[in-house]
């Protein structure tokens, strides 16, 4: 078929040939081909966002976010060099010191994308000086809890509530390091918002910031998603929760 031939292209990804169709981003094409680029704010069910920067790849001597950069014929994409992995590691370390991420005490440990991507890039310690911000835990909702200490500002809940649930329960307020997740309700509490356990927004958090109540350690640590296989093979935690 001439049409499909003329609309398909290919590029090199760490030495492998990856096909793409016009309009696809590097991330779209790579994930479709069964390969992996680490990411946190990206979720194929939502429009690309480009804020976490963990998916940086090298293209033509520059670093671009794979989730927003359009795939182009013949491009050479570096996703595995020490330079690229080093940039990702530093970005992950920044996320770790920005919030309060105490993995051993977190219900999400073992099924957390932040933790899993950190392992993937070979991050061994947070490295930078911790900010230790004082953040709250919102347990006002009957079914869900929000621990703001673990929020990485990926805005997936913001997008899911707005674009999928049609509710706009979440937003981002402030700027710079004071940027923070806020809830649209008269009190600012989740319990007074229209948030429901069946919302898409309840099931997209890549970290342990939005968690169901009344469940604890149902799957023992050591047997969780990323305890069994690396994130590069099993992908996003949200996709597994849905399944």
């Amino acid at each position, binding site marked *: 078929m001439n049409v499909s031939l003329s609309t398909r292209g290919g590029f090199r990804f760490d030495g492998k040939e990856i096909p793409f169709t016009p309009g696809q981003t590097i991330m779209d094409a790579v994930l479709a081909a069964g390969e992996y680029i680490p990411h946190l704010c990206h979720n194929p069910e939502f429009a*690309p*966002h*480009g*804020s*976490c*920067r*963990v998916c*940086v790849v090298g293209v033509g001597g*520059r*670093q671009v*976010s794979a989730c*927003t950069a*359009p795939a182009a014929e013949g491009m050479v994409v570096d996703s595995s060099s020490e330079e690229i992995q080093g*940039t990702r590691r*530093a*970005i992950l370390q*920044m*996320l770790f*010191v*920005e919030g309060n991420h105490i993995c051993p005490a977190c219900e999400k440990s073992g099924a957390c994308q932040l933790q899993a991507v950190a392992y993937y890039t070979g991050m061994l310690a947070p490295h*930078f*000086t911790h*900010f230790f911000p004082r953040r709250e835990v919102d347990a006002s909702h009957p079914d869900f809890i929000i621990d703001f200490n673990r929020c990485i*500002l990926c805005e997936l809940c913001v997008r899911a509530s707005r674009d999928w649930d049609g509710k*706009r329960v*979440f*937003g*981002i*307020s*402030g*700027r*710079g*390091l*004071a*940027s923070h997740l*806020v*809830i*649209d309700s*008269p009190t600012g509490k989740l319990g007074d918002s229209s948030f429901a356990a069946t919302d898409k927004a309840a099931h997209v958090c890549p970290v342990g910031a939005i968690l169901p109540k009344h469940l604890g350690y149902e799957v023992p640590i050591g047997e969780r998603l990323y305890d069994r296989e690396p994130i590069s093979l099993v992908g996003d935690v949200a996709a597994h929760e849905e399944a």
Partner: protein
Amino acid sequence: MSDPSIGQVTEFVAESLARHGRNPDYLLQHLIVLQHRFSCVPAAAVDALATELGVTRTQIRAAIDFYAFLHETPRGDFDILFSDNITDRMLGNQRLMRLLCERLGVESGVPRADGRVTVGLTSCTGMCDQGPALLVNGMAVTNLDAQRVDRIADLVEMGTPLEHWPGAYFVVEDNIRRKGLLLSNPATDAAGLRAMLEKGAEAALAEVERSGLRGRGGAGFTTALKWKFCREAPGGERFVVCNADEGEPGTFKDRVLLTSYADLMFEGMTICAGVIGARRGFLYLRGEYRYLVPHLEAVLARRRAQGLLGEAILGHEGFDFDIAIHLGAGAYICGEESALIESLEGKRGVTRKRPPFPVTSGYQGNPTVVNNVETFLAAARVVQWGGYWFRGEGTDKSAGSKILSVSGDVARHGIYEYPFGTPVHRVLTDCGAANPQAVQISGAAGATLAPAELDRIIAFEDLPTAGSFMVFDASRDMLDMVRNFAHFFAHESCGFCTPCRVGGALLRNLVEKVAAGQASEYDLAEMRHIGAVMKSASYCGLGATAPNHVLQTLDKFPAIYRRLLRSAEYTPSFDLDAALSEARQITGRNDAGAHLEVEV
């Protein structure tokens, strides 16, 4: 200021809605007038606007939280903000602010209990040629000295309304020192606009293309190409936006252009509208220049009366175009064109993902041209006098002239227009810079030049610049500049992407660690490491340029860091020996053995 009643607030919101309409894009404009009227955006106004504009309370609160000039709690009858650019500091703004705080009995940034006044700091207000400067209820006061500050304290204590303050306080001089292609003639008889209407939009675009004009905001995108892309972009309505959010520290040339060359700028916007087929345009004016609004509105009104704006411009049926002024509210990031468009739409000024670029998907998703004030000015003259007239000056890659804002340690502060290709030393000679130690080109995000580099040229191919030109003489400690800029970028990061949001704050903290005499070589290497990540991985130009000043001074002025290093290797950010003081107190010891060894 006593708390307003809910009735007062809702009545005021109703007036604002009557004036601006119920388009949610005008949210920020409503918030600005509310802030001005009540010294905060009262909760009742948030509720009323949420209902009337159909937006969430969260969106409104998030905007208030984002823009530095908006507040949820009252600032008082007088909201005083000292401009805190490094040039203001060099002129003693910190001493003057302490003086005012002492006189008024207030702490920086904390409203006085009686609701009379708040005194704080703000990023560069664009008065570097006549600083130190401050904003009082949004109005610029220049040329501060101890006497003026003393008098201001009296006026505040007496509760004297601003209209009864001495007029001299609010005088803003143009300080035009050198005129070139654009500044030499402010007069306009709409000749450029007539030329476009006579010869046609395509011919006008061809002149702009022939001129080689590139954007004057710093990035230098070819203007004709931008206009052409927008003209050819699929879609319905098109928009022209003039970026007058002159926020780069040390820049003030747009202030002068808006003051004395506004007609030419509006003419350039109107020509652009004719070329791309726009019916509506916006002037996005930084909040710091709000004092210019009455003047700019008057120019717009006159142009409408002259048939230069509105319907059937200069009698040409079907050529309808008008311009509305939108104010910013204290956010440097809004100078970035996609963040500016978000702000025009009433939202937090967060940069958009690109592509798509504004020329295909800008304001409300429509094809939009965003150009700098100086670019529109130049475009008007280019269409009037021809592309070759403009091309005759400058270099191959940088046609025409560049207007510079010169401040710092010079005898003659002000704006200077030079042909592109002019060496830095020529500017230094003209402005009377004695014994310069460093020149900061294009603001905090730009290039730091050492004395050996002064023969470099102002041009896109060597030193691209949005116009800021700050001079530091040999008496200055360059670490003061670095500290000022590091705080600036941490404050102005929009917070969207990780490297800029977190990296900027880490960098600021490390710079402060150096200044406190607590740093080691390890910390300097960390600064390079963080800077490199910010440069390569940030989402937009703000994050990518924010570490420039640190990286360049580490290379060119290593002594400003080295002399303060505590040790060659690693020093923690706290004092280990001081941490032992409690143990010494408990044990009653203070001998040498109870202290850590002093490092050599």
